[in-house]
């Protein structure tokens, strides 16, 4: 393993950063502006990819920019960027998926005629620059710098809609992530004081194993808490579902890939290269971390069952899946031998695996929104006819999420299961298996809804899990206005009082073309939605007019209360791309293909090799005995 001085890690950060200026400069010419985005994305990816062979050979590319915050010549913290194996895992992932997402963004933003597109693309480039910086940071402090910059850069994306809802989400996002940043900073300072260094060292920083255990535990807790905010560990996860008000490509790349993974990646750095698995095990902090992760992955799966908004369901799925990674890290650090190795590999491999699959899922949600303005699963009955390719891709990715073989999720979950089971941590094995079942439980309805149900009245079944209150109580007081409950509440009204409740789960849904004379739940529950009276008179006029009407009148988030099947049901479109533009379909298929490649030939895909190298470096003592499953 040799350090190679090189400007390439710096270039990988600098290219997207410089691109921001060009993007702003070509503000008035969208085509030129998008060209800059694509150019920067391609260049970044090529720069990162060019380092892969060297990294696989055990080399580390280092850019040293000199001392950052020196103090009396003792232990200097240097501003260094280095492309090592672990950093490469995240850097390669972020830059590759940025390229994919750039195409998708163009299709999405233009398809919706979004405002402030320049700011959007500039902030996107800034986010990627920060994410690559997070990947290539050579010590905790540099990591913290980019971690905070990532927060700032993604804030404009979360608040993009400029509605009250998105502003609230943005505030919450900043409050949570800056709070996490404070914890990271505190942990970093503590590590620096304890060990005299914050540089990432495979196997852990030396001084920490001999430091005062109480303070070392405090530092570990602070760091994992801080990174755990972005990794959406419970109970600090709640910014993530709210941040789903962002445009879908943002949710896709940033909230399934870059932002949340930067948190997970931070935890990986802390476990593997700050404390080292050995010290983590000695301090006894690995199992608590894994326990938090196990709790999160179960709870989030259960919550996801009841989310009707597709993006929110995906968000909770993200919360759950991220915990697989954290669980792998936590459990891997507290066991020895092959079990630890398998758990670590499983956890780390889930970073790219989940990224590809979740990106596919988000892209599908986004394309559905662009093409049909449908956001809620209950409106998606029969949508498979309208968007066959999209929903097929959705099905593949969802299968992978649930851990079905031949898709990426299977490989990483298999490693995790083997690791936990062979290490004797059977409780965690059980949690993983239960969560897998729950995954199927919340993804299957979407797929089923899309392909096997009809949008026609009476054509699909009722969804008690989504529509009813928990525990089945009907006499709960009127809704207090909590956003996430609204849909469920309204749906309940429909199911209980509307004789034809099956026609639509959402009572305030205005498009009920097949049943223009029926009883509308909205009439009996006028307080649910102020707009009902003025909409009532126009009900027969068809969906398009209503959609316009909504778009004009709502200052609320315009993705709400529209969509669903048009009059006469979904039209059937061809499987050959008739459903949308290739700007969006291409990225979806690419990401889906990526998940399959990772699932079928993980040994060939570069990510598994990188992961194995990381784990070997972090656990040198165990390397000799380790076997490889694939």
């Amino acid at each position: 393993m040799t350090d190679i001085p090189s400007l390439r890690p710096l270039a990988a950060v600098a290219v997207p950063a410089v691109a921001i200026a060009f993007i702003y400069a070509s503000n008035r010419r969208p085509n030129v502006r998008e060209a800059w985005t694509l150019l920067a994305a391609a260049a970044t990816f090529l720069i990162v990819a060019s380092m892969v062979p060297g990294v696989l050979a055990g080399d580390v590319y280092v850019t040293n920019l000199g001392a950052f915050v020196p103090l009396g010549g003792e232990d200097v913290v240097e501003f260094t960027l280095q492309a090592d194996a672990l950093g490469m895992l995240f850097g390669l992932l972020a830059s590759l998926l940025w390229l994919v997402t750039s195409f998708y963004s163009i299709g999405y933003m233009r398809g919706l005629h979004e405002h402030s597109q320049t700011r959007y693309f500039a902030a996107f480039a800034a986010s990627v620059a920060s994410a690559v910086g997070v990947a290539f940071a050579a010590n905790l402090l540099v990591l913290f710098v980019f971690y905070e910059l990532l927060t700032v850069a993604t804030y404009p994306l979360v608040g993009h809609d400029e509605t009250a809802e998105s502003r609230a989400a943005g505030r919450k996002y900043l409050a949570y992530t800056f709070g996490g940043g404070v914890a990271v900073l505190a942990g970093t300072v503590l590590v620096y004081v304890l060990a005299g260094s914050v540089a990432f060292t495979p196997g852990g920083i030396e001084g920490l194993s001999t430091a005062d255990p109480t303070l070392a535990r405090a530092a570990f807790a602070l760091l994992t808490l801080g990174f755990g905010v972005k990794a959406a560990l419970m109970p600090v996860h709640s910014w993530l579902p709210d941040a789903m008000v962002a445009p879908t490509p943002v949710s896709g790349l940033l909230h399934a890939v870059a932002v949340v993974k930067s948190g997970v990646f931070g935890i990986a750095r802390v476990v593997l290269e700050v404390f080292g698995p050995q010290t983590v095990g000695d301090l006894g902090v690995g199992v608590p971390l894994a326990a938090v992760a196990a709790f999160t992955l179960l709870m989030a799966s259960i919550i996801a069952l009841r989310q009707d908004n597709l993006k929110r369901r995906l968000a909770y799925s993200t919360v759950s899946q991220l915990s697989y990674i954290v669980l792998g890290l936590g459990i891997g650090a507290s066991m020895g031998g092959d079990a630890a190795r398998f758990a670590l590999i499983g956890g780390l491999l889930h970073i790219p695996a989940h990224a590809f699959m979740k990106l596919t899922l988000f892209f599908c949600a986004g394309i559905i929104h662009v093409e049909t303005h449908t956001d809620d699963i209950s409106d998606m009955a029969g949508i498979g006819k309208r968007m066959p390719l999209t929903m097929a891709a959705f099905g593949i990715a969802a299968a992978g999420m649930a851990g079905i073989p031949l898709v990426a999720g299977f490989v990483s979950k298999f490693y995790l299961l083997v690791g936990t089971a062979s290490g004797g941590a059977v409780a965690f094995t059980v949690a993983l298996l239960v969560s897998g079942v729950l995954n199927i439980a919340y993804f299957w309805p979407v797929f089923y809804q899309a392909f096997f149900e009809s949008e026609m009245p009476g054509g699909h079944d009722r969804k008690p899990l989504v529509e009813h209150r928990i525990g089945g109580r009907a006499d709960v007081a009127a809704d207090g206005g909590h956003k996430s409950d609204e849909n469920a509440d309204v749906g309940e009204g429909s199911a209980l009082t509307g004789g034809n409740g099956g026609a639509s789960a959402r009572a305030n849904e205005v498009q009920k073309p097949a049943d223009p004379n029926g009883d509308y739940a909205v009439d009996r529950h006028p307080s649910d939605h102020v707009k009902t009276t003025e909409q009532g008179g126009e009900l027969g006029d068809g969906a398009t007019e209503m959609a316009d009407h909504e778009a004009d009148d709502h200052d609320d988030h315009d993705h709400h209360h529209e969509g669903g099947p048009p009059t006469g049901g979904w039209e059937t479109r061809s499987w050959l791309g008739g459903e949308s533009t290739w700007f969006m379909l291409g990225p979806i298929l690419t990401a889906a293909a990526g998940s399959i490649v990772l699932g079928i030939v993980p040994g060939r895909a570069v990510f598994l090799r990188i992961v194995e190298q990381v784990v070997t470096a972090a656990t040198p003592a165990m390397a000799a005995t380790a076997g490889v499953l694939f």
Partner: protein
Amino acid sequence: MSELLPLLVAVPIVGALVGLVVGYKFERLAWPLAVVTSLAHTALAAFVAFEVYAGGEPLSYAVGGFQPPFGIELVVDGLNAAVVVLVAAVALGILAYARRAGPHSAAFYTGYLLLVAGLSGMSVTGDMFNLYVFLEITGLAAYALVATGDDGRSAVGALKYLLVGTVGASLFLVGIGYAFVATGTLNMADLAEKLAGVGYGSTLVRASFAFVVTGLAVKTALYPLHTWQPEAYASAPDSVSALISALVSTVSAYALGRVIFSVYTVDFLSSVAFAREFVLVLAGISIIAGSVLAVMQTELKRMLAYSSVSQFGLVVAAFAIANDAAVTGGVVHLVGHAVMKGGLFLAVGAIAARTGARYVGEFDGLAARAPLLSAALATLSLSMVGVPPAVGFVGKWYIALGAIQSQLWPIAVVILLSTLLTLAYFLRIVERMYFRSAAPREAPAERSTGTGAAAVADGGANDDSDTDDERPTLGRGSDVDFGSPSAGMVAVILVAALLAVALGPLVSTFEPLLEPTLDLLLQP
């Protein structure tokens, strides 16, 4: 080289007097004269700082040939060389801004240069009583400058500032008196030795510390001694609030640090635990209370004023922690805060000049109307919050590091949480600027909007409650009375924003320069 030290004070005073005389006759020459003086002063300051840092030795000069400890000594070491340069550079920058923003009068430029002279004097002096005199010169010039706004509000603000400020200076004087009674000397270096000789247990010494710290805390505007500050900042013309916010409290905080390290020394802090706790508690309360009060403000300049209360809490906490890391952080944050807060006040002033917005509620959708200024304001805000690698973060890193090294956990927690507290009041501004669109409504212009460019352009109408109603409002942003900020004003603000970011990485070159001085000051 040490002969240059008195010039640091003399040049602005001479410039002030010449400016007054010439400007009385030829009003248009007042600004060029002030700029020439300020340029000369900056060059001098930069040269002195270069000598100090290159030579690694403090420069000292005995005024009038009377040798210390009897005569007055001027000393520049690594600690105050930075402050001297800061004073000169910030004064020059704000002078460039004031050319268009006003106030425009020979008297203003005279007061301006006198303030610079006073601040330079406070920075370089090595004598306690001399410090008091310069403190009062600074104060007098500042009171007069605050009152240059031409409505009644600025006069009231200035009088309040004067009364509270004088009490602060008087308490400082009492403290000097106690120290003098205990030791019979006023020279800082001499005092340090003789106070140690008297013994830190002596009631006189302890009381003098309490009085000196309290007096300087008034001038630094720590909670709860900050009461003069918000009104003074808010009612002063924009150029003046920028100058005062950037420098007056800064130099007072420097003086506090200087007194702690050079007069009472670190030994005093470590042997009298109560003294350190007293300062730490004062600083900690200041950090929290200042932020909470800032969140509650609706007027931008008042919000920024309370933000200063909070930020100086950080600096003073750093001085009280008194180890290498913390003091480095204190100095970095002192300089960084001056640049950031000065820039923020200038940006707010320029925004008011362009759009008339002075209240938080009027900032909706500002980014669309004034993109450059909004970007600068956002950058400065984020830097103040402590987003790395800007200078606001670097200062905070060192201070937090120092607190944890000394295992002072409560203050460490407060320092770290100050990030979130700062975020609380800056976030709402940024959010309004970028994520709300401007509602087409009338600005509440019937409230007195302070005395910035708009008010100055009024022509100094005295019956302001009547004219205020006729002041152009938001919808007519291009109105003559608002004018628009000149390119020079915007340039100064952008330079401040760039500096706020660039100074962060530059600290790594500054720290080794500071190192020898700190070794000297902090040796046990």
